[in-house]
């Protein structure tokens, strides 16, 4: 069932429509649809067309360089890679437990990252679809259009993101691609001035994030027929879980639930991830397809990210976000929500949680401490897992006796969601495109489903992409029938 529409029987007889590349996502990917003479969809694939390379060229580099180098995978969530690599390298320097200052500075950096990335995704990348409609005028379906029609929403989105980036700058030295986390700890703590600089806006940001949750919820309540079913498919889901079953985006152990919400595995140590997760390669994409080993590649795929995390944890450790989480669970009606657009609502709950966490951390005197580093017995293998904005991020390294990296394996958030995104666009293609004349607005429905996952295709393939869009419609003989283009 999970491979329905993945491969058509006689593709040479079908028309091909390509969305190349998918826009308003990070990275470079394309969607191809194969249609028969009656415009009925026979095959749908999300292809990731760029080459991955970091796992290879990190080999032979000194281990202390890795947290700074691998963050260049991405311009939106570099902090996630920076911290996952640093966590892995903590084991190399024998730092089994960081100093309180180091751990809290890293957490501040990470929750700043969650805040800015979620704000960027919701307000800049997706709000045009959600506020104007998926098939609305393409000329206004962008952040400039949002700023013109909903100026306060756009302004808050920009300022929430800015606040998150300032938290990153203060902990890592730069808003993008800093150096704060090093193996065994951090290279700086906060000064009183830096702490107060963030604190003066922290409460306003919490209030705005709460409003953003309400906006996302209202979208569901206003049009439940659309929001509760668009791109829906059932699957397992997985995330890290902190102590006592609470959400923890910085650290924890792996937990998975099945599509009904029953726990499938729990309390899995990060170092055991390979016992549970296998990756499959398919010839039409550079992005691998992970699945749970015990279920096999046909049934073992799963979702990660906000929709998984909010429903996988037993609670959220900040009060406002936890109240919103409970309302989300109640709205779903006793079984997990699997609708793709539910990601947006869950993402806003997490954004609120990040804002509350930052506000709480800023009241913690450990942030101002001077004990920055820990060390211990030298290790040769490190596992670093973190809940990145888009889902569970896994870094795994081995380091030789000369301090050089000998093995690197990265499973990034978007890779976990590969099959899930393919399933979502197949669902949308069947429902909205099947048997109809293709238009830009209809094709955007496909992209809306992909964007719900907030994919980072650069991370997933370890390369960077550009975003102009050209859609070509060719007949069965390969002749160009119609072309639509859109600049970045």
């Amino acid at each position: 069932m999970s491979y329905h529409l993945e491969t058509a029987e006689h593709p040479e007889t079908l028309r091909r429509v390509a969305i190349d590349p998918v826009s308003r996502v990070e990275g470079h990917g394309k969607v191809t649809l194969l249609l028969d003479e009656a415009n009925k969809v026979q095959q749908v694939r999300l292809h990731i067309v760029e080459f991955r390379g970091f796992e290879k060229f990190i080999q032979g580099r000194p281990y202390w360089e890795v947290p700074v180098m691998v963050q260049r995978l991405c311009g939106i969530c570099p902090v996630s890679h920076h911290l996952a690599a640093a966590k892995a390298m903590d084991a190399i320097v024998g730092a089994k437990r960081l100093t309180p200052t180091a751990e809290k500075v890293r957490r501040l950096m990470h929750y700043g990252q969650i805040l800015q990335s979620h704000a960027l995704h919701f307000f800049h990348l997706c709000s045009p679809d959600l506020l104007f409609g998926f098939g609305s005028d393409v000329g206004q379906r962008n952040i400039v259009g949002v700023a013109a029609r909903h100026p306060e929403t756009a302004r808050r989105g920009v300022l929430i993101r800015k606040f998150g980036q300032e938290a990153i700058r203060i902990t890592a030295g730069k808003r993008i691609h800093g150096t704060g986390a090093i193996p065994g700890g951090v290279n700086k703590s906060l000064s009183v001035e830096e702490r107060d600089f963030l604190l003066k806006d922290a409460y306003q940001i919490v209030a705005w994030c709460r409003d953003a949750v309400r906006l996302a919820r209202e979208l569901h309540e206003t049009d439940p027929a659309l929001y509760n079913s668009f791109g829906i498919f059932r699957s397992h889901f997985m995330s890290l879980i902190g102590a006592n079953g609470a959400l923890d985006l910085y650290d924890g152990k792996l937990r998975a639930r099945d599509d009904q919400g029953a726990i499938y595995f729990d309390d899995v140590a990060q170092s055991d991830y390979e016992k549970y997760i296998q990756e499959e390669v398919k010839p039409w994409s550079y992005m691998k397809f992970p699945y749970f080993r015990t279920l096999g590649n046909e049934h073992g795929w799963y979702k990660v990210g906000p929709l998984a995390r909010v429903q996988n944890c037993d609670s959220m450790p900040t009060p406002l976000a936890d109240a919103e989480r409970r309302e989300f669970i109640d709205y779903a009606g006793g079984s997990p929500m699997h609708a793709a657009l539910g990601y947006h609502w869950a993402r806003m709950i997490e954004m609120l949680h990040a804002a509350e966490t930052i506000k709480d951390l800023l009241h913690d005197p450990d942030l101002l401490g001077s004990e920055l580093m820990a060390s211990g017995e030298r290790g040769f293998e490190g596992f670093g897992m973190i809940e990145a904005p888009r889902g569970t991020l896994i870094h795994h390294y081995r380091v030789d006796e000369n301090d050089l990296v000998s093995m690197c394996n990265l499973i990034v958030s978007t890779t976990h969601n590969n099959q899930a995104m393919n399933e979502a666009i197949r669902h949308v293609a069947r429902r909205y495109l099947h048997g109809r004349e293709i238009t830009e607005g209809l094709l955007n429905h496909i992209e809306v489903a992909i964007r719900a996952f907030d994919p980072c295709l650069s991370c997933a393939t370890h390369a960077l992409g550009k975003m102009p869009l050209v859609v070509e419609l060719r007949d069965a003989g390969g002749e160009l029938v119609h072309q639509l283009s859109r600049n970045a």
Partner: protein
Amino acid sequence: MSEKFTLDGQEILFRAGQTIIQAAQDAGAWIPHLCYHPEFKPHGSCKLCTVTVNGRHMASCTTQAAAGQVVESNTEALNGERRTLLQMLFVEGNHFCPSCEKSGDCKLQATAYELGMMTPHFDHFYPSRPVDASHPEVLLDFNRCILCSLCVRASRDVDGKCVFALSGRGIGTRLVVNAASGRLVDTDVAMDDKALSVCPVGVILKKRRGFAVPIGERTYDQAPISEVKE
């Protein structure tokens, strides 16, 4: 010290025997350079310190100061030639500043910033230069070597050893260590050797210290290289 020359119109006093760059540094004036270091005999190889002396191109690190010289350094023409030299240095090696632990403390990077080098311009060579991580405390990353020979001079003239040398000719010139195995661990290098602390780029690195200094506190975060006293 009563004799003087002019540097970009500014009068510079000098002592007998001083080179132009020495007198300029004493006067607080910056002439771009990479292979020159005030503690070592000039090498004159990087050519970045080239100035015009009475209209003729001369390396200011090897040219004696003389009374009445009219020296020009900070001109668009000379800085353009310096940018070209920098661009060639960047493409001849593998200089990946974004992940280099010397970033912010690197003279090559800081000089390129100061002289407004915006792109490498030339095709990259992408040479294959494996690192030497054999020594337990020192990493050699030859990818970043600009052949300034400061480590060679420091080892020979200060440490009384010959741990480092330049081998080969022309475009094949490369930094080597003095051991039959070619590995640093098999040399007589010691951690307090001067040679280990003079590299202007990110070749000779003390292990496990990378990125310990936060952004904002590195040498050239504080001030541009033209204002940092050597």
